[in-house]
Structures are given as structure tokens and as C-alpha cells.
């Protein structure tokens, strides 16, 4: 593989990895506080992309549409928690998982019923799709913007977690929810904030996805969501930094394996699960995770 192709794949991998990373952060944060795999998370990403699409179709400028998508997804995320997860806080884990699957299925089918199952073309403004041509490498500007924005967001999330009072509360919740309640912290409000942050990031991931593969459909969140979850486990579930590392590893692997062994292209979607099984076999805590029974970010 010569240098040009290598660099080309490197930027593609970074861009794909960013998307997984953004979605994985949401999984890892919700898992940290509730010990729940939020099956509906991938569909929240789809919801964000759809809100953006319709806001844009309504004639709003792209930037405003993105904002609406992010806020819309955050609202849906909070509603999901309030309706389906909050009444089950004290119930067995399986009940929570089943409602999460129910919500996921509900969102997918509701959007299919409302907007049809055919993919919709998603057009980003010109300044995002412009293509640079440097030394034989084709660079759509989006592949530069996506990883940059991801790293900025990571910095912001880490700042919130480690430098603000809310962040401290979130980290405390991950350790011991009962004690935190006894200390006079409104646990439900903190969980709401976690869902809002996670869903907003998922929406950003969804919008990046829509820009890179310029189309959206109601089922787009399933596979991406599962892969992002695999990335979160790979990095060490509960660790935000780990989610980002896992996301990038998965992104690079998918791009490079397909570039080097084109005959494996059809199995692209299966890599994430091979990773998942390997991680669970040899290092169940993931790359950056510690003891699974203890909370940490």
C-alpha cells in the first residue's frame, strides 16, 4: 500500500472512528450511572439526523437545523428516560433492558410509519462537501471537521465531568446511587442531564453520519449503534476516554481491513462483534476500564 492510499484511508478511518466515538460516549455514560445498555441510543442518533433533515427541509439554515436536531434528540432522550426507564429504577435489570429494546423498536417503526422506509438524501451545505486535492489525496473538508469537532466535544465532556459540580455528581452517581441520594443530590435530575448529554452527542454523530453517507433512513441507527456499543466495551465501558479510543480503533480497523483485504468487505459489519467477543474473552474490562463493578469515568 503506498503512502497516498495509506493517508487517504487514515483520514477516512479517523472520520468514521469519530462517529463511533461520539455515539459510544453516550452508551458509556448511561451505562456508568444506570448500568443499562441503552438499546435505544442508536435510534436517538437516527432521530437527531431526522430532526435536522426536516428542519433543513423547512427552509432553516443548516446551522440552525443542526441545533434543532441536537436539542430534539436530547428531548427525546430525556423523555425516553422519564417514560421507560425511570419507573423501573428499582426493578431487575432485565426489565430495563426489555423496555429499552421496546423503545428502540418503537422509534424505528414510528419513523418508518411517519416518513417511509426509503432512504432520504441528506444534502450538506457546500462548504462541508468541498473536496481538497493535496498530493493525490482527496480530502472532503468534512473528514477534517468531523475528527476536530469530536476532539473538541471530548474536551468539553471531560471538562463537564471533572471541573463542574454536575460532573462531580455524575461521577458520584456512578459509584453509588443510594449514597448520592442520601447526600441530598437529586439523582433523577443528574440522570436526566446524562441522557441529555449522551443523546445530544448521538445526534451530532448521526448528523456526521448523514453528511458522510449522504442519506438517512429509519433503521440507520441499529448497526451503527451496536458497533458504537462494541467500541464502548472495547475501550472499557464506563470510561469516556475509553469510548473515544475504542471508537477510533474500530473506525481505523474497518477502513484498513477493507482497504487491504477487499474480499472481506462484506464482513465489515461483523468486525465490531469479533472485537467484542475477543475483548470479553481476554480483557473483559476493556482497554481503559478498571473493575467492572465500580463506577468511573
Amino acid at each position, binding site marked *: 500500500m503506498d503512502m497516498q492510499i495509506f493517508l487517504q484511508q487514515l483520514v477516512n478511518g479517523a472520520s468514521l472512528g469519530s462517529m463511533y466515538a461520539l455515539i459510544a460516549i453516550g452508551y458509556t455514560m448511561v451505562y456508568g450511572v444506570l448500568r443499562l445498555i441503552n438499546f435505544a441510543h442508536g435510534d436517538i442518533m437516527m432521530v437527531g439526523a431526522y430532526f435536522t433533515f426536516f428542519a433543513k427541509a423547512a427552509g432553516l439554515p443548516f446551522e440552525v437545523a443542526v441545533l434543532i436536531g441536537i436539542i430534539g434528540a436530547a428531548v427525546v432522550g430525556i423523555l425516553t428516560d422519564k417514560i421507560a426507564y425511570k419507573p*423501573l429504577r428499582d426493578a431487575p435489570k432485565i426489565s430495563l433492558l426489555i423496555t429499552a*429494546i421496546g423503545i428502540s*423498536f418503537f422509534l424505528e417503526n414510528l419513523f418508518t410509519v411517519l416518513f417511509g422506509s426509503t432512504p432520504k438524501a441528506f444534502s450538506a451545505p457546500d462548504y462541508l462537501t468541498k473536496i481538497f486535492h493535496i498530493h493525490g489525496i482527496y480530502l472532503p473538508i468534512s473528514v477534517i471537521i468531523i475528527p476536530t469537532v469530536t476532539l473538541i466535544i471530548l474536551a468539553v465532556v471531560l471538562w463537564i465531568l471533572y471541573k463542574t459540580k454536575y460532573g462531580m455528581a455524575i461521577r458520584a452517581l456512578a459509584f453509588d446511587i443510594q449514597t448520592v441520594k442520601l447526600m441530598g443530590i437529586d439523582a433523577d435530575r443528574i440522570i436526566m442531564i446524562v441522557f441529555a448529554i449522551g443523546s445530544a452527542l448521538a445526534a451530532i454523530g448521526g448528523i456526521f453520519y448523514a453528511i458522510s453517507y449522504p442519506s438517512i433512513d429509519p433503521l440507520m441507527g441499529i448497526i451503527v449503534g451496536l458497533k458504537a456499543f462494541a467500541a464502548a466495551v472495547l475501550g472499557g465501558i464506563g470510561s469516556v476516554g475509553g469510548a473515544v479510543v475504542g471508537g477510533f480503533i474500530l473506525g481505523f480497523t474497518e477502513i484498513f481491513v477493507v482497504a487491504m483485504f477487499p474480499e472481506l468487505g462484506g464482513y465489515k459489519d461483523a468486525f465490531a462483534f469479533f472485537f*467484542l467477543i475477543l475483548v*470479553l474473552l481476554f480483557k473483559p474490562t476493556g482497554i481503559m476500564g478498571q473493575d467492572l463493578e465500580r463506577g468511573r469515568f
Partner: protein
Amino acid sequence: MNKFLRNIILIAITIYFIYYAQNHFDSYTLSILDNIGIFAILALSYNLINGIAGQFSLEPNGFVAIGAYFTAILLIPTDTKLDMFALVDPAPIILQMKAHFLPAILIGGVAASFVALLLSFPVFRVRGDYLAIVTLGFGFIIRIFAINNPAYTNGAMGLNDIPEEANFLWIGIICIVTFLVMIHVIYSKFGRAMKSVRDDEDAASAMGINTFKMKTYAFMTSAFFEGIGGGLLASMLTTITPDQFSFLLTFQLLIIIVLGGLGSMSGALIATILVMGGMEWLRFLDDDITIFGMDLGAHPGMRMVVFAILLIVMMLFARRGLLGDRELTEFFKKKSK
């Protein structure tokens, strides 16, 4: 009355009903009954791993696919296979594989069971949510393999012209066998061990139960009958494609066993009839809907929205399902102290 005699009579009556239905009912009713029978087999076996052993797994679509593909390949005549494989020539082993109906579905079941054995090593190292996501991933991988190995599975086009050997007689009798085996397992020492793993894995382990072994037994038994159910499904539908074995199948089974009450076999049977009958009845939701003269148009997928809401509401308000984890007969027993 002697319990054993009573059970024999009940089974005889059921078999007579199945025999009568097979010969006298019209084909539409029979196709619904076929569907109910197959889903009952799947739900009963899925209930063993989820409800009795308490391992929340989401893999039945994978095992059903394995059973369906094995049965289909074993049943389709060699000439038909040569015609059907359009993308690439079938692998030699595919052409050699050939069996009668009963061996074919049994081989499908054994194959699924064997995959379950292999899978149990990575899967049962983890508990709870991880188990769910790994098994869910497994279902996806099976589908991806089916699509990407056209020499064995004819790729995304799937297999058709599968001889239609499964009729309600077969399905009904296998359903009864499944039910009896499951009941037998539940009330055996294995069933009690599985329940103890469900209720408190650490305590069970401390009492000397090999929890990994128990989970694997439950997983393999469950996979065996799911494979057989898949084989029956393939032979009933006469055509299979990888997309039939998507997560939707698992989702339907999950609704059934949750509605019936996780861990209750008779609950699973009743819920299968309710859900599959309900699916048939709610078909109008997918057609044109007219309310007060307003034509709302056709909304394919509406049924699934209703079922998703049903699942959520059930989990929120009636978490224990119809029968809880008890069997129907336990409701009639006098409480003894």
C-alpha cells in the same frame, strides 16, 4: 384420577385435534395454525434460556437461521440446487448433503446446538447486559455470513423451492414434544439448578452447582429446538432469505415470553396464541385506515409500533406477564402449608 393417565388422555385428545385439523380445516386456517405451532416451539425453547435459566440472550434468530438453512440444503434436490445457485456454483458439500425430512430437521437442531456449545465459552463469561449484546451480535453475524457465502447459502437471494414437507401434523406433534421436554427439564434436577442460577448465581455456585455447565445445557437445549423450529419454518414457507432472520424475529419471541410470564411454559403457549393471533388480527393496521371518513392511507409498520408500545406498557405495569413464573396447573392446586 391418576395423573399419568390424565396426561396421556390430554395428549391423545390434542393429537386427535391436530389430525382432524390437518384433514378438515381450510388452508388459510391451517397456515395460521402452522405459524402458531412453530412460534410456540420457538417461544418454549427461548423461554428455557431466558425465563428458566435467567440468561437474557437475544440470539434465537441466529439459531433459527442455522436450522432453517441446514434443513433447506438437506431437503432441496441436487438438480434444483444446481439451477438455483445463480451467483456462484454451489460448494460440492452442499450438493452432497441430502436427507429425509425428519433427519433433516434433527440435523438442523443438532447444528444449532453445536454452535450454541461453541458460543457458550465466550458468552457465559459475562452476565446480564453483556450477554444480551453479544448474543444480539451473534444473530447479526449469522446473517452477514449467510449473505457473504453464496457458495453455501446462495447469498442474499436465499433458497427457494424447498420441498413443503412440514404440515400441521408434523408441527403440532413436534410442538407437543417440545412442550413435554421443557416441562420435564423444568421439574428435573437440571431445571431446579437452572432456576437457582437465575435467582442467585453466586449462591447457586456456593451450593456446588456448576453454573457454567447449567447455562450451557439450557443454551444448547434451547438452540436445539430453535434449530428444529427453523427447519420447520423453512419447509413450511418453502423459501428463505437471510433477511427473514433479522432481530424482528427475536423481538416477536421476546414479546411472547414476556407476555406469558418469563419462566412459564404454559404462559408461553397461551401468549403465542394471543400474539400470533393478534398479529393476524391487527393486520388491518398495516392496510388503509379510514377514520371518520378521512383516509389516512396505508402505514406499513403500524402493527410493530403497536406491539412495541404493548411491550413497554407490559414491562411498566404488568412486569410478571400473564402467569408470572408459574405454570397453569399451579393455579388450580390447593395451597399446601
